[in-house]
């Protein structure tokens, strides 16, 4: 089982779209996927269920926020109890793999503040222990899922580097970075890598205290940057954005060869129907071309993650 965090500091780069479509296409290819929505905006959640269903069936006590709150209070709560199978997408997937979800909640924004209050300590040793305890919350929670149940657990992270996001990184073997091919987004990739390196260093420095298993050192790998919202001309990215793709490669940052093409028509309302673009069929060649692009990206992802048969 692999745990993959989908992350970028910058908002609006297509993290949720990538997570939803990647998970759906992998499930179509007979893999069992668990999505965890850690973004208080809950966009991934609302890509699979309606706000009305979320409010009536989940918001009260069945979101990731409920779990974080319970753990902070010292109450027993298995993370796996939050897992459910969204109906629309799993109806589409019938006979193939599966796609399950742990939904988010707007109140998750306060969880960062609450976790921050648990940091620090009377001594350096205590501060380090509290740091590890706070940042290991999610990885501990994932122990309640069976390794055999899922091929990939994919975490949709919020566009920041707060404690909840850091929990996702600590819990992950791999990092996937969606990014738009423009100047500010490529600067954002540098910021993200710097923050990732700092977190890994700090975390692994802190585990050198007496009562922590040294095997718990973290070592997530960057699977790569996948460029999104790519405008094409002549079956390749337009000339204005190609330099940013090339520059990212030249910085020795892994970059997926395939990319997600821009298409406002099909991406703008797809979440409304609870079934990602990747597993819907389209009658026009332009729209089908977007799906083909997603499929190529997922094939590359399978190879990089070692998922292919």
């Amino acid at each position, binding site marked *: 089982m692999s745990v993959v965090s989908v992350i970028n500091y910058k908002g609006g780069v297509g993290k949720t779209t990538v997570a939803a479509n990647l998970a759906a296409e992998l499930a179509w290819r007979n893999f069992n996927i668990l999505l965890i929505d850690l973004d208080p905006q809950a966009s991934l959640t609302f890509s699979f269920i309606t706000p009305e269903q979320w409010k009536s069936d989940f918001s009260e006590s069945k979101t990731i926020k409920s779990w974080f709150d319970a753990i902070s209070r010292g109450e027993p709560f298995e993370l796996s109890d939050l897992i459910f199978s969204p109906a629309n997408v799993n109806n589409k997937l019938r006979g193939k793999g599966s796609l399950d979800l742990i939904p988010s909640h707007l109140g998750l924004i306060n969880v960062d503040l609450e976790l921050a209050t648990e940091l620090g300590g009377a001594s350096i040793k205590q501060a380090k222990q509290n740091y590890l305890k706070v940042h290991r919350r999610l990885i501990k929670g994932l122990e309640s899922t069976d390794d055999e149940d899922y091929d990939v657990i994919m975490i949709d992270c919020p566009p920041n580097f707060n404690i909840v996001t850091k929990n996702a990184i600590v819990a992950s*073997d*791999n*990092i996937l970075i969606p990014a738009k091919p423009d100047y500010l987004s*490529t*600067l954002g990739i*540098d*910021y993200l*890598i*710097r923050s*990732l*390196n*700092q977190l*890994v*260093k700090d975390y692994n420095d802190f585990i050198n205290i007496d009562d922590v298993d040294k095997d718990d050192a973290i*070592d*997530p*790998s*960057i*699977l*790569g940057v996948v460029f999104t919202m790519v405008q094409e*001309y*002549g079956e390749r990215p*337009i*000339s*204005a954005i*190609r*330099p940013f793709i*090339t*520059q990212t490669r*030249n*910085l*020795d*940052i*892994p970059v997926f060869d395939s990319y997600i093409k821009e298409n406002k028509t099909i991406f703008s309302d797809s979440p409304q129907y609870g079934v990602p673009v990747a597993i819907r069929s389209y009658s026009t060649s332009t729209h089908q071309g977007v799906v083909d692009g997603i499929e190529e990206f997922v094939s590359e992802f399978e190879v*990089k*993650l*070692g998922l292919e048969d």
Partner: protein
Amino acid sequence: MKNYKKAVSNCLRKIADQIDRIDASELEELAKGNFGIRIEFSNNKDKLKEKGLQKLPNNEELNTIESVLREMESREQGETFLNEKGLSKEGLLYLAKHLDLPVQKHDSKKLISDKIIETTIGYRLRSHAIQGSSKDSGITKQST
């Protein structure tokens, strides 16, 4: 009639040749309707003579210029190097096209040069400024 048809076909062939020389970004703008086409008649012999005075870099020279720029550690070094190369505007356009940069014939020589510098030197300086010492260790390794 026969001569007229031949003249039209020669004309169309010359227009097609000129369109073939348009770079990709200009062709995109033409296709979108943002650019138009204007036909000017000129004396071919004068044009050829003018071109003959400009030495344009060949592929090997372009590769060498690119390699040198990619090793430089400041924008100022890159600017000095390009100035010393004495490339004409057309030479810089050739270099920009070699680097797959979106430049247009009406861009100034300075703008073309700046774009070349940014794409060979500037982006590395930016990345290093942001990533700092964390670049030398950490998780940029690729997952297999």
